[in-house]
């Protein structure tokens, strides 16, 4: 190897080390810039993909009608989620009022977003949405969609890249770990997906259940709310098979959300400073110290 090549190799390694040791803030700025450059192409790609998928139905209905149907569907989904959230809040409110005379459930708001890129990563089950910092989205915000009459968990925000995009880590990824339980049971465990993004719809694994857990195929698995990252009672999937180990039981779960067909999703935002609001209400002599707010919904 010539002397020039050796010098260039040293320079290359030095540059590589410098880049690798960049701070997360620097990396975020770089990614923000890259996302700004690439987002038009991502949007075009997504439109092209949607166009290909709907090519059979395109000739049957005018584009305006399709747009209207999309809009109505989004509206219906928003309302469905609103009802689910309201029911949950009212139920929990009444229950806790009776039991403890106190509740401090942080109200939530939902931001509707559209998927602009599917599976952008080789090794992680992720997708990119068209909402970001400008809409109040933050890392670790849960992402949900309606599943029948319930709300199903899609995943969580892994990274907010600029004002108008964020990366969602899907429930099907090994690194999206959710505290879960069997519905109508106190059996709790940790649910996660598969390493390597080898499938869009892999079976999920619910681990650390007790050996005595009454698990039957078809039983629903929901989030337990433990840890506070994900709201409770979000539908995760249904039990597919059970494996009893020496110390605990492990359950294979079929995800409820169809990750291959996600178009519109909802990011759950916590409403800031509910404690102060509750304190202010109790100080002002409000008879009902329980402050439950209607979830706010923003347009996609």
């Amino acid at each position, binding site marked *: 190897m010539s002397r*020039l*090549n050796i010098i*260039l*190799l040293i320079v*290359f390694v030095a*540059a*590589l080390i410098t*880049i*690798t040791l*960049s701070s*997360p803030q620097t*990396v975020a700025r*770089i*990614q923000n*810039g*890259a*996302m700004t450059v*690439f987002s038009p*192409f*991502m949007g*075009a*790609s997504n439109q*092209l*993909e949607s166009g290909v998928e709907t090519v059979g139905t395109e000739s049957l209905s005018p584009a305006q009608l399709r747009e209207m149907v999309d809009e109505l569907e989004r509206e219906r989904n928003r309302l469905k989620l609103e009802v689910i959230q309201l029911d949950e809040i009212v139920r929990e409110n009444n229950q806790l009022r009776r039991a403890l005379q106190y509740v401090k459930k942080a109200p939530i708001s939902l931001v509707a977003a559209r998927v602009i*890129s*599917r*599976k*952008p*990563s*080789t*090794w*992680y089950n*992720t997708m990119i949405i068209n909402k970001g910092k400008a809409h109040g989205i933050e890392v670790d915000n849960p992402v949900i969609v309606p599943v029948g009459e319930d709300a199903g968990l899609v995943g969580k925000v*892994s*990274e907010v890249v600029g004002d108008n995009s964020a*990366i969602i*880590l899907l429930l099907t990824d*090994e*690194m999206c770990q959710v505290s879960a339980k069997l519905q109508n049971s106190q059996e709790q465990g940790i649910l996660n997906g598969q*390493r*390597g*993004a*080898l*499938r*869009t719809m892999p079976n999920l694994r619910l681990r650390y259940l007790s050996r005595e857990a009454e698990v039957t195929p078809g039983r629903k698995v929901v989030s337990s709310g433990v840890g506070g990252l994900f709201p409770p009672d979000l539908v995760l999937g249904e039990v597919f098979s059970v494996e009893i180990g020496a110390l605990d039981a492990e359950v294979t779960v079929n995800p409820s959300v169809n990750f*291959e067909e996600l178009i519109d999703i909802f990011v759950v935002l916590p409403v800031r400073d509910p404690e102060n609001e509750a304190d202010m209400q109790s100080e002002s002599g409000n008879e009902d110290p329980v402050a439950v707010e209607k979830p706010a919904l923003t347009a996609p």
Partner: protein
Amino acid sequence: MKFFIFVTVAFLAAFIVQEFIPAFEWAYSSRILLVHITFLAVAVAVPFPAMLLYALIGGFIWDARHHIPIYPPEATAGIFTQAELPFGFTIFIFGLTGALIQGVRPLFRKGRWELPVLMIGICTSLGLLLEYLVISFHRGGLEIPVELWWKLLMSGLFSALVSPFLLLLLSRLGARSRLRSKNSYRRHNYDGDAI
């Protein structure tokens, strides 16, 4: 000079085209990694210093667009502050595979593409395998399901299938811009004898 300008433009265009290439669910979510293929094709066609430069630029842009900051458990404990696949890891992958594929550059210059095409496939899979191993290292358990081998195989196969078109393009362009030596227009066997 024209050759390098064209190669640079083609390399950058590969990033845009990559956005339009979906993952194939039937092939274990593998995809045509056009940027990787273009880089490897360029790496076999240009001298070592230029290869390093393209590895640096290409890896940087790829990570700027595709880097996912998933932190390993030890990062949350404050022991390790980098993501599982740190920003810049693709530069390392490109540099490594680029250096490997430089070994078959003489064959490409002589018009023998069989081994370069095979190497592009192998290097693509090798790069992906390295990434998977680093992820597994951080997570503390080496899971190697059968689907992983299929994913690596399919990715490598896609690369090997697409690469001849790029090699043809680079070869023609090299000829037009007189980058290659006079003898390089002649076909040679593997012993170096002109056919």
